[in-house]
């Protein structure tokens, strides 16, 4: 899934704030909403690397204005390390008006909390 060449204009970073480590080997997916049908189309699936990142989420050409969703398989992640979690997954829905900018959508996560922000 990772691209050689231009860097994805959309990036993420998963941090396990409970343990003070990157959230590595977490499955995630990127989706875009069809404006007329409101149905979600899957764009990319991937897994975070050792640093909790997932390069190559989307190409510049595919990164058009619209409503996007990042889905993080957080429940699976905690289960893999032998823990339960309050959230079965986390979905962050966001609006891209100007695809010329860079967008960073991180997830800071513990078993019982999470946060996100718009970075660049």
């Amino acid at each position, binding site marked *: 899934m990772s691209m050689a060449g231009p860097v994805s204009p959309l990036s993420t970073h998963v941090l396990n704030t409970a343990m003070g480590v990157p959230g590595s080997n977490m499955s995630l997916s990127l989706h875009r909403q069809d404006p007329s049908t409101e149905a979600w189309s899957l764009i990319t699936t991937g897994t975070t690397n050792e640093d909790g990142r997932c390069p190559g989420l989307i190409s510049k050409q595919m990164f058009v204005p619209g*409503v996007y969703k990042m889905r993080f398989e957080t*429940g699976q992640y905690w289960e893999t390390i032998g823990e339960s*979690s*309050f*959230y*079965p*997954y*986390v*979905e*962050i*829905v*966001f*609006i891209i008006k100007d695809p010329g900018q860079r967008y960073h959508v991180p997830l*800071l996560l513990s078993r*019982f*909390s*999470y*946060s*996100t*922000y*718009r970075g660049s």
Partner: protein
Amino acid sequence: MTECVPSNTDLSTPVHQTMAAAESSPLTTHVLNTGDGVPAARMALSLHRLDTNTMIWNMLNVGTTDQDGRCPGLISRDAFTSGTYKLRFETGQYWKSLGQTSFYPYAEVVFTISDPQQRFHIPLIMSRFSYSTYRGS
């Protein structure tokens, strides 16, 4: 002041019965606007439960936060069974009503209730470009 009315409430019953249901909701929320340092008042929200047979979300309640950013009476003790729930906060509408744009059209928090005897507090701490949540009690 608008208040969440549990879906199983008979609207012909006296107001005090609704208030009792409101006070004893085992699930509560609190929305805070950290951009302005105020409670997020008058934000629409809804509570849903996942039907695991059909994998469809059933809406249990809709409401609007009060002046303190809270929404009493989200669910009654009887209706609060184990399962997967979703709280959907209409954050985009909220910012728009204040004349602002926001990065997120809405925020949905999906969570698992294994022990409905406990109390669960699901706050949303948010600005135009960030939000966070945690499991409180």
